[in-house]
Structures are given as structure tokens and as C-alpha cells.
């Protein structure tokens, strides 16, 4: 059992009352009152519909909400006093909440959920995002059944997305994770995923909770840990992924949460990924993904300006990070006209790999390295958006696949950079 001293007495008391469970649904929150109500009702519905006989609990790890989020979550408990919308629910369903901190911190939230799963001996767990308004009660079943029935340890999602959604995933996280870790896992940074109690119990005692570098993006770290430990993993098509309006200023935090943890993980995982060649497909329940093609407006001019300005303004920073050839090529691209603009796959892959190697060596502050990637990513995004402006779903998939193969092909380049920097 994990030695957890960060659990409050009140939370422990609540866990005692819950007792051993078969299913645990973890819900990290912070001021999500606008969205969490419908989500917990969907979770409740999913449990009652798909797992009416299983012992289940909803664990809300809250980061100090002030809008009543925890109360909304706990209100959907079903017991002999509060019977909920389903008068024929066989069992009590506990929905409990704990405040793990006064400010939100994803690692602490996840750790709380894992600790609860460990103490309650949960067989199967699922983490849900408090912001996914498109969640359906069937997601509970899709993420849990492979664990309960087929012995999988990790179930990651695939989604139906617009072709211009999730560019960071399709152009960096997925292909790089695939190339390095050898598994074609489409959503390495998942906000909804299922895992076995066994996997959660193995991850909980790892020394990842106080590492500021890996602190954010803990979910990514968790998934990579499952891969390196060679747990049984599959992915499952869930359905529509909410479209989240992102402002330009959101990119750096997003990179910190995703690319930073990925780069950080490469160090301890080096023995694993350095030995991997190629990649293996993953059992996928349902489609790998579905692509929506409706027209959306993209401010390509703005993207190009930010790319070009970034290349110019951060030239001295890039000199520390990139090889002279790569930097020169980027500067050439930055001079291309609007109609000729392209950020070829090979150049992009080399860019990312050189950043990773530089991150490993900490040539400058690691956070600055991540920040410096932002304008370059915008350039790559621009190239992708331009190329796929009229692209079909097949075109998008082919483009992604092609990029993945390029990451795989150039993996030795990364290894060379990695070692040369040591």
C-alpha cells in the first residue's frame, strides 16, 4: 500500500466509508461549476447503465474551487437517503470530494486519485476531464471494459476531431511518441483514459510527484510509464472531442504541459526508447480517429508573422539549440513568400529532435527551450493548415502517417544528437 501522507483525515474517513470498489472514476477539478454538473450526471448514468452491479465510486480531487464545484460532484451520490434519478439503482454510489490543495496542480490531483484507487483496491479506473461537454455515458464503458473484461492495463482514447484540431498532437506528440516508444498511440496526452488498479499502484510510488519539470503533463508521464513497463495497452474510439477555442497565448502553456514532460521523460526512458526501432500498431476498438472537414477560419497570416518574427528575434537562442544547418534552413523558410511557404517534414523533425537533445543537455534554461519552440511550431502548423486546406480525411491521415514515418526514419539522428551533446 502506498505511504500517502497528503490525504486528509476527512478524505480517509470518506474512503473508509466507501470501502473496496470495482470501479473508480477520477475527476480532477478547479472551478468547473459550469461544466461539471452535466459531466457527473453522465458519469452516474454510465455507471448505472453499464455497470449496475459493480461497486463504484467517483473521486473528485479538487484544487480549491470557489464556485461550488465539489458540491455539484457530491450531489449525485446515490444511497438510501439520496436516491438519484434512477429509483432502481441496485447499489449505493458514493461520489466524494477532497481538496488536495488551495491552488490547482494536475500532479497532485492525479496522485490523489491514484492513492484513492490504491486504498480502495479498485480493479479499474477512469479519469475524466471536467471540461469535456461532449462526454457520453458510453465512454465509461469503452474505457473500462477492456480493463475489466480483457485484462488491459491502459485504455487511451481516439476521437472524432476537426482536421485542424489537435495539431500539436498530430504534428509532434503522436509522431514523436510513436517513433521513440514504438507504439502507435494516437493520444499520448489524454484527458480521458482508463487504467487498471495494478498500473495505478505501480505508478503511485514513483518519484515523479515533486519533479517540477515533469509535474505538469503527469498524464503523459503515466502513459509513457505504461509503455516502458510493457503493460497491455489499447485505444478506444470515444466520439466527438470538444472543440476548445485556443488563444495564441495558450500555446506556451500547452507546450509546457506536453512537450516539456515528453522531453523530460526521454532521459529516464533512454534505455527503452533508444533500443526501439520502428513502431507497432495498437489494438484499437473502433476507428483510429474520425476527421471532420467543415470549413473553419484560420488566421494564416498571423501564424506566419509569428513564425517569421520568432525566427528573427530568437536567433541567438536558436544558435544554442539548433544545429547551424537546421537554423539556416529555418531562416530560409522564414523568408518564403505567403504562397510558397512550407515547413517540410524533414526539417520539422530535425527541429524537434534538436530541441529534445538540447533539452536533455540543458544548453539553456529548459523552460526557455520550450518557449522557444512556440514560434517554430506555429510555422509547422501553418504549413500543415495550408497543405490540408482542401484535404480530405484520407489526405490528413496520409499526411500524419508520412510525418510519423519521417520521425521514425530520423530517429538515429536524434540518437546521434543525444550522444553528441553528452
Amino acid at each position: 500500500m502506498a505511504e500517502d501522507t497528503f490525504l486528509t483525515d476527512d478524505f480517509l474517513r470518506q474512503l473508509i466509508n466507501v470501502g473496496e470498489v470495482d470501479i473508480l472514476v477520477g475527476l480532477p477539478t478547479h472551478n468547473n461549476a459550469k461544466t461539471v454538473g452535466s459531466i457527473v450526471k453522465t458519469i452516474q448514468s454510465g455507471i448505472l447503465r453499464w455497470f449496475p452491479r459493480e461497486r463504484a465510486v467517483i473521486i473528485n480531487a479538487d484544487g480549491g474551487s470557489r464556485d461550488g464545484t465539489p458540491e455539484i460532484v457530491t450531489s449525485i451520490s446515490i444511497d438510501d437517503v439520496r436516491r438519484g434519478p434512477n429509483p432502481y439503482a441496485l447499489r449505493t454510489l458514493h461520489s466524494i470530494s477532497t481538496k488536495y490543495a488551495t491552488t490547482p496542480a494536475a500532479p497532485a490531483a492525479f496522485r490523489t486519485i491514484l492513492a484513492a484507487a490504491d486504498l480502495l483496491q479498485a480493479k479499474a479506473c477512469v479519469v475524466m476531464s471536467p471540461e469535456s461537454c461532449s462526454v457520453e455515458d458510453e465512454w465509461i464503458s469503452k474505457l473500462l471494459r477492456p480493463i475489466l473484461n480483457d485484462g488491459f492495463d491502459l485504455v487511451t482514447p481516439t476521437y472524432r476531431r476537426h482536421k485542424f484540431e489537435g495539431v500539436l498532437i498530430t504534428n509532434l506528440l503522436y509522431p514523436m511518441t510513436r517513433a521513440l516508444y514504438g507504439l502507435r498511440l494516437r493520444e499520448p496526452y489524454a484527458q480521458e483514459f482508463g487504467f487498471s488498479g495494478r498500473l495505478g499502484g505501480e505508478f503511485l510510488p514513483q518519484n515523479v510527484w515533486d519533479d517540477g519539470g515533469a509535474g505538469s503533463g503527469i498524464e503523459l508521464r503515466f502513459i509513457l510509464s505504461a509503455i516502458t513497463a510493457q503493460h497491455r495497452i489499447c485505444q478506444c474510439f470515444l466520439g466527438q472531442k470538444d472543440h476548445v477555442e485556443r488563444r495564441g497565448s495558450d500555446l506556451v502553456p500547452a507546450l509546457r504541459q506536453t512537450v516539456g514532460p515528453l522531453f523530460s521523460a526521454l532521459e529516464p526512458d533512454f534505455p527503452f526508447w533508444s533500443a526501439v526501432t520502428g513502431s507497432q500498431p495498437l489494438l484499437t476498438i473502433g476507428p483510429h480517429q474520425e476527421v471532420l472537414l467543415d470549413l473553419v477560419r484560420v488566421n494564416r497570416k498571423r501564424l506566419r508573422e509569428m513564425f517569421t518574427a520568432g525566427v528573427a528575434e530568437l536567433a541567438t537562442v536558436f544558435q544554442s539549440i539548433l544545429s547551424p544547418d537546421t537554423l539556416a534552413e529555418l531562416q530560409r523558410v522564414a523568408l518564403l513568400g505567403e504562397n510558397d511557404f512550407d515547413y517540410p517534414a524533414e526539417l520539422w523533425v530535425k527541429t524537434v529532435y534538436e530541441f529534445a537533445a538540447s533539452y536533455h543537455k540543458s544548453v539553456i534554461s529548459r523552460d526557455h527551450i520550450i518557449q522557444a519552440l512556440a514560434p517554430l511550431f506555429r510555422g509547422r502548423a501553418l504549413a500543415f493548415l495550408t497543405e490540408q486546406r482542401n484535404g480530405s480525411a484520407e489526405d490528413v491521415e496520409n499526411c500524419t502517417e508520412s510525418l510519423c514515418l519521417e520521425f521514425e526514419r530520423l530517429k538515429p539522428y536524434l540518437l546521434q544528437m543525444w550522444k553528441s551533446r553528452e
Partner: protein
Amino acid sequence: MPLNQDVLWYKDAIIYQVHVRTFYDSNGDGIGDFQGLEQKLGYLQELGINAIWLMPFFPSPLRDDGYDIADYNTVHSSYGTLEDFHKLLDSAHSRGIRVIIEMVLNHTSDQHPWFQESRSSQENPRRDWYVWSDTDNRYTGTRIIFLDTEKSNWAWDPISKSYYWHRFFSHQPDLNYDNPAVREQMWNVMKFWLEMGVDAFRLDAVPYLVEREGTNCENLPETHAILKDFRRRLDEQFPGRMLLAEANQWPADLRPYFGDGDEFHMAFHFPLMPRMFMGLKLEDRKPITEILQQTPEIPSSCQWSLFLRNHDELTLEMVTDIERDYMYDSYAENKTMRLNLGIRRRLAPLLDNDRRRIELMNGMLMSLPGTPIIYYGDEIGMGDNINLGDRNGVRTPMQWSGGWNGGFSTAEPDRLYAPLIQNPVYGYPAVNVVSQLGSGHSLLHWMQSIIAVRRSTAVFGRGSIEFLHPANHRILAYVRRLGNESVLVVNNLSGAAQAVELDLRRYKGNIPIEMFGKNIFPRVGEVPYLLTLGPYQFFWFRLRRI
């Protein structure tokens, strides 16, 4: 020991349900009889029960184990004579044991002379004593109760060349209670036994007495009116006697059977029983507390009757489809165990012969509000034989000893009315009264002690109930109160040890005294009262303020 003269004696009763045929054979013919039962009254008195409920002992072709009656005014010759019954009655009364007998009002055997006359011609004076029709499409929508064997509630009579109505087996035609002569005759039947000294009737199948087009033919106002009339006559002519309703209905539909204290004295709480089993398997009190919270208040002179098992299948009629499926999967995976809408197993096999669960279920039986009924043989943990067909597997001979025929009869084994249970776990060499009397920690001794504790206070039979709702859903906790007396009951429905915090602020200052060992526990204060319970453990605490 004289009988308790309190008119509300049934509230303090511990009832033992037994079939004469199954209990003890005094004359070596392989069938239990009245004299045999009389000889075993001492055993029952030692057990601590103070009422016996005898299953039907009337003349009958026995196609439904005696619930198909061919003569209401005497006893089946296999069980003895009317005089034997009278002696049993007197003997029981002398030991302070009351006698409840069956009265099947709704139907007779098709061998009953009344039916034979009724079917003989349309002009027969008893023609209208049963429910006849030229077609079988009257009263459509009425549910079929014996689903496994009957396809219709109408049966074609080739003699009468018309259909007759039957809510149970087709050889059990329903009496026509719209006929005043029928009502008068059935009161005379009851009067016959009341004058003999019988203390109470369990009235079988009462919801179905009257039929009306456009209804489900159950619980109709006309049925209640008839029952109220019987009750009025009973109170006038035989005060202190009791009527117990067998009405397998939802609590809200059961409530009318109590009337305003002017219909039945008691009724079986059918919906509670399967939910006790469900709560145990789920390790969750929710099914139990919910059904009791839905149970309406009843007149102060009335009483629920509680039971774990009986001669019938563990009925799953009054549960939802989800609950029924769960119960089947949990307790009757082998489909042979399923009958009609129920499970035909005894208590011990249902609970995997787990002594702790058997004790817990009996603990709840004895402490929840109502009068408990113990099914014969369950006090020693008898098993069943599902291969005997219909519900006969739970009606095997009582196991008195490990000797010849389990001590039930001196007859040759193949003459017994039913074979004894013989498997290594539940067979009579392993499970019998003699062995358990000789073992201080046997189930039988434990049953004796819990009955004694139950009878040590009136609070269980007559008190109110207040449920506590601790956050630990595996704990079923409640307080029974009567006057100044309060008893706290805490049950762990889980097979794992549990900790529970109880909000007992209302009882602050009281000292809980555990009722079996009489040891004192820490005084109740302001803070939540912490208890830890072992697997399936329960506590009864008398709350004393000193």
C-alpha cells in the same frame, strides 16, 4: 405454561412454520403426523418459539402439497384424526404455544365435493360456487402466478363444457366470492376450527378472492369488504384470535389489508425478504432500507410478519427486473433452482452454509420490526434437494438424528413421503438435532439464545424503528424504541471487517450494553460513535442511561 392472554400476543410471537407431514412420524408409516408433532412440542418449547403455523392438513389429493383442499372440516387421514389434532392443540396450549392453521379461502381442489357438484350441471345449486365462463377471454390482463406450469387462468372442463377460473394450478378452481353462500360457508369453516381452539388463521392467497372485468383481479375493494366481514365476525365471536394475510404484493398494496385495524392483524412483508438477501450479496443496505422506507405505517394493533424462507420458492415477484436478474445470478446460477419467479432453496444452501451469514440474517429477522417466522429445519441449517420437483426440495423430512431415517420415522426408507437429504454437507448424519443439542456452539444453540434475547424485551416486537444512515453503506443500523427502552442494532452486511461512525447524539449519555454478553461499551458522547465489526457481525445494544 398458560397462554399469554394479551390480545396483541402476535406482536410478541416467534412463529415456527412446519408441515405435519415433514416433522415426525409416530406410527411408522413414513409420514409425519399430529401425534408425532405433539411428541416434539418439547423441542419447540426449548427452542423458544411460542407459536406454530401448520401448513394444510386437510383431506386433499396432495397435488399442491395440501393447498388443494377436498374437505375443510376434517384432517387428512395420513396425519391422524381430528381427535389427534385436538390433543395437539391442547398440548401446545399447555406449553404456552399458540397454533396457527392454514385456511385456503381462494380455491379448493377439483376433487372437493363442492366442485364436483358445481361442474355436474348448470342447474346444480352449487353451480355458482365457482367462476364459470363460456369463453376464456374474460379478465384478460390478469397475471399468471404459476408461470412454469400454467398458460392460462382459465381451464376447460369437459364435464361442464365450459371454462372455470383458477389463479393457481388448473386443479384448483377458484371459489366465487360474489356468491353469499360461498362467503357464509367459508365463515362456517373458519368457525369450526375456531370453536375447536385454533388461535389464528393464515389466510392463503387472499388478494385473488374477487374478479372484475377491466382490473388485474387483485386487491379489489370487494375482496377487502369480504375480509373485513370475516374479521368483524371473528372479533365478535372469538376475540383474541388472529388473521394473517398471505398477500404477495408491494407494500403500498399490502397496506389496505390492515384496513383501519379492522381487517387483518398481520401480513407477510413479502418485498422485504428478497431484499435482505440482495443487501447481503451486494454488501449494501440500500435495498433493505429503501423497501422499509417505502413501507407505509400500519394501525397500531397490526403487525408485519417477517421471514427468511418458507415452503414456497424465495419469491422474486415483488422486485424489479434488474433485481430479479441479480438475484438469479447471485443465488440460483443453476437454472434448476429457479421456479416460477423465484428460487426454491433453503436458507443454509442459499448462504453457502456460511454460519456467519446465517446468524446475520437471523439477527436481522429477529430485530427488524415485525413478528419473525422460522421455517422448520432452518434452526439447524437443513439443506435442500432441488431434484425433487416443484417446491418439494425444501419440504424434506426433519432431521432429528444421524440414525435410521434421520430419526424421522421407523419406516423403511423407501416408504418415506420424501427422501431425506443425504449429501455429505447437509445430510442427516451431519445436520441433525441430536448432534446440535450435544454441541454447545451449534447453530441450534445459537438460535435458542437469540430467540431468548429477542423475547427478553418487547421492543423488537412492538417498538418503533429509526434508521441511522452512516456513510458506510455496508452497515445497516437502526434504533428500536418502545417507551423508555431503546435498542441499537448494527449489522455488518459485508464479508470484510468494517469501521463505522454512528451519529448517536440523540442518545448522548447512554451506555450501550451488548445484549448477548451483557458487556458495557463506551458511553455515547457528542462525537460520532466509532464501532468496528468483523465480517457479517452484528451487535444489539441496549442503551441505558444510569
